[in-house]
C-alpha cells in the first residue's frame, strides 16, 4: 500500500485548483471572514507548503479543499472540474495526532480505511508488513500511550498514507514536536514523499520547515486569508536540514520569507 502510486486511469487525480475561494463563519454583522479571494493551483506530485499567521484561515482552506466546508462564491476544481460535495482525493493529518487511545497501533493505522468503508480484515490486510516502512515494526499491538511523540506522529502519518488518497492535507503535522524530533520527522516525510510523490499541501508556522519541504511556498495574508506571494523553492532535492542551513540560496529565501511575515503594513491589515 505505501508504495502504491496514486490511483491511475480516468478518475486519477491530476490537479487541484482554488478559484476565488471565500468562506465566512456566521452571518450578518457577526460574520468572520476566514478566506477571501484565494487562488492557487497544484499539479499532482507537488509538495506545497502554506505559511501564514495564526488564525488567518489555513485550516479553513483545508476544509474547503476537502469539501467539508463550502466556498461561496468560488470553486474548488479537480482536474479542471468543479467538485460538488466531498473531495474524493483528500486525506488529513493533524498536529495533535488524534490517535484513538483504545486502539492498538495497527488498528489506528487501519482506521482511515475503515472510514472508507473497508471491512476490518480488508483494512488491515497488508498493513502489518508495512509498519516497518514507518519505523513502527514490532509496535503493531502497542497502544498510543506507550509511544513517543515522534512515533505517534508516524502512526498518524501512516494512517493518512494508508487511505491511498493522492492529495494529503497535512495541517501542522509536526507543530507539537520538539525541535530534534521535528527535524527527524521532516526528513522522514521527505523520504516517504520521494517514494510515490503524492500531492501534499502542508501547513506550517515554521519558515525553515516550509522551505526545507516545499517545491513551492505559499505565504498567506492575515485573516481573511488570501495568497500574498508564491515562492518557488529552487533548492535541489534531496534536502537535509543541516546542509541547507549554510546554503546561500536558502539563506536568501529565508530572509525574504521572514521579511514578508514581518511586514508592518501587512500586520495592520488583520480585521
Amino acid at each position, binding site marked *: 500500500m505505501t508504495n502504491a502510486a496514486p490511483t491511475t486511469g480516468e478518475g486519477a487525480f491530476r490537479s487541484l485548483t482554488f478559484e476565488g475561494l471565500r468562506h465566512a463563519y456566521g452571518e450578518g454583522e457577526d460574520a468572520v471572514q476566514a478566506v477571501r479571494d484565494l487562488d492557487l493551483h497544484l499539479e499532482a506530485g507537488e509538495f506545497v507548503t502554506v505559511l501564514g499567521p495564526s488564525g488567518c484561515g489555513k485550516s479553513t482552506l483545508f*476544509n474547503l479543499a*476537502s*469539501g*467539508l466546508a463550502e466556498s461561496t462564491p468560488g470553486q474548488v476544481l479537480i482536474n479542471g472540474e468543479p467538485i460538488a460535495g*466531498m*473531495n*474524493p482525493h*483528500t*486525506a*488529513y*493529518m*493533524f498536529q*495533535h495526532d*488524534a490517535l*484513538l*487511545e*483504545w486502539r492498538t497501533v495497527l488498528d489506528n493505522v487501519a*482506521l*482511515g480505511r*475503515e*472510514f*472508507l*468503508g473497508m471491512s476490518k480484515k480488508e483494512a488491515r490486510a497488508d498493513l502489518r508488513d508495512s509498519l*516497518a*516502512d*514507518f*519505523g*513502527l*515494526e*514490532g*509496535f503493531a499491538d502497542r*497502544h498510543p*500511550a506507550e509511544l*513517543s511523540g*515522534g*512515533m505517534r506522529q508516524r502512526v498518524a502519518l501512516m494512517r*493518512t498514507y494508508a*487511505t491511498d*488518497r493522492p492529495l494529503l*492535507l497535512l495541517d501542522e503535522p509536526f507543530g507539537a514536536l520538539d525541535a530534534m*524530533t521535528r527535524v*527527524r*520527522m521532516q*526528513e*522522514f516525510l*521527505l*523520504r516517504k514523499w*520521494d517514494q510515490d510523490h503524492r500531492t501534499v499541501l502542508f501547513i506550517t508556522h515554521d519558515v525553515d520547515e516550509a522551505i526545507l519541504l516545499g517545491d513551492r511556498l505559499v505565504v498567506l495574508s492575515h485573516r481573511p486569508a488570501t495568497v500574498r506571494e508564491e515562492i518557488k523553492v529552487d533548492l535541489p*532535492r*534531496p*534536502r*537535509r536540514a543541516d546542509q541547507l542551513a549554510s546554503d546561500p540560496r536558502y539563506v536568501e529565501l529565508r530572509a525574504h520569507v521572514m521579511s514578508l511575515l514581518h511586514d508592518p503594513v501587512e500586520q495592520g491589515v488583520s480585521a
Partner: protein
Amino acid sequence: MITADGLQTAPAPTAAPGEPRDGAPTEAERRAALRRRSRRRKATATRYGLPALVLLALLGLWALLSVGGIVSDLVLPTPFEVAKSLVDDRAVYWMNARVTLLEIALGAAIGVSLGLLFGVMVGLNRGLRAALYPLLVGSQSLPVLALAPILVLWLGFGIAPKVVIVVQIIFFPVTVATIQGLGAVSAEVLVFGRSLGASAWTLFWKVRVPAMMPHVFGGLKIASSYAAVAAVIAEYTGAEKGLGALMTRANSDYNIPVVFGSVVIVTVIGLGLFLLVSLLERRVTPWARRADEI
C-alpha cells in the same frame, strides 16, 4: 542511516530500515517498563494496606469506647454484639437485604439505561443540549429524597417508590458523564473521518462511544456509591421489607446491634457495587488512565 540522497542504505545492525532512530524499544525503555511494574506493585500495597490499617484502628477505637463503657451500650453496641447479631439474625438480614438489592438492581438498570440514552441524545444534539442541560443541572436541587413520602403516597409501600428514587439518583451522574464524554471526542478524528466519507453512525460507534466510556465509568462510580444509601433512605419513609425498614423497626425497639448490623450490610453493598463498577471499568476501558488510581 540517511545517505545524501535521503534514502536508506542497508540497515545498520542497531536500527531497522525506515526507522529514524527511535523505533525499537531501547534498553532504557525496557528498564522504565520494569520500574513501572515494581512501582505498581508497591502502589498496590499502599492501596490496600493503608486503608486496612486505618479501618483496624477505627474498629479498635470503637471497641475501646463501647467495651470500656465510655459510651453506654444503649447507644453504641460493642463490635462483638454487632458481629453476633449479624450471625444470629442472618435470616432476617438476608430477607430484608434481598429486597433492598432488588430495588438497587432495578433502579440501576433503569437509571443507567435512561442516563445513557438521555445523555447521548442531549450530547449529540446542540439544540437539545441548550434547551435541557440547564434544566437537568437545576433538577439536582430538587430534594428528591424529601419527596420520598409523596412517592410512597402515589406508588404505595412496595418497591416501586424506592426504585424510582434509585433511578433518579443514578440518572444524573450517568447523564452528565455521558454528555461530557461525548464532548471530549477529538474534533480532528471526526474531521479525518468525515472527509473520508464516514457516516455519523460509523463515527458514533468507532469514535464517540469508546471515547466517552471512561467518562461514563466516572459517573457510574459516583452513582454506585449513592445507590445503596438512596434505597435505604427511601425505605425509611415507609416500607414493609428492606434494610431501611429493618433499621427503623430495630431503632424503635432499641435493638441497636441490629441497626448497626444493617449499617454494616448497607456499607458492604455500597462497596460491592463500587468494586463491581471498577472491575467492569478495567475490563471495558483498560486503556484509560484513572484519576482515582494511586
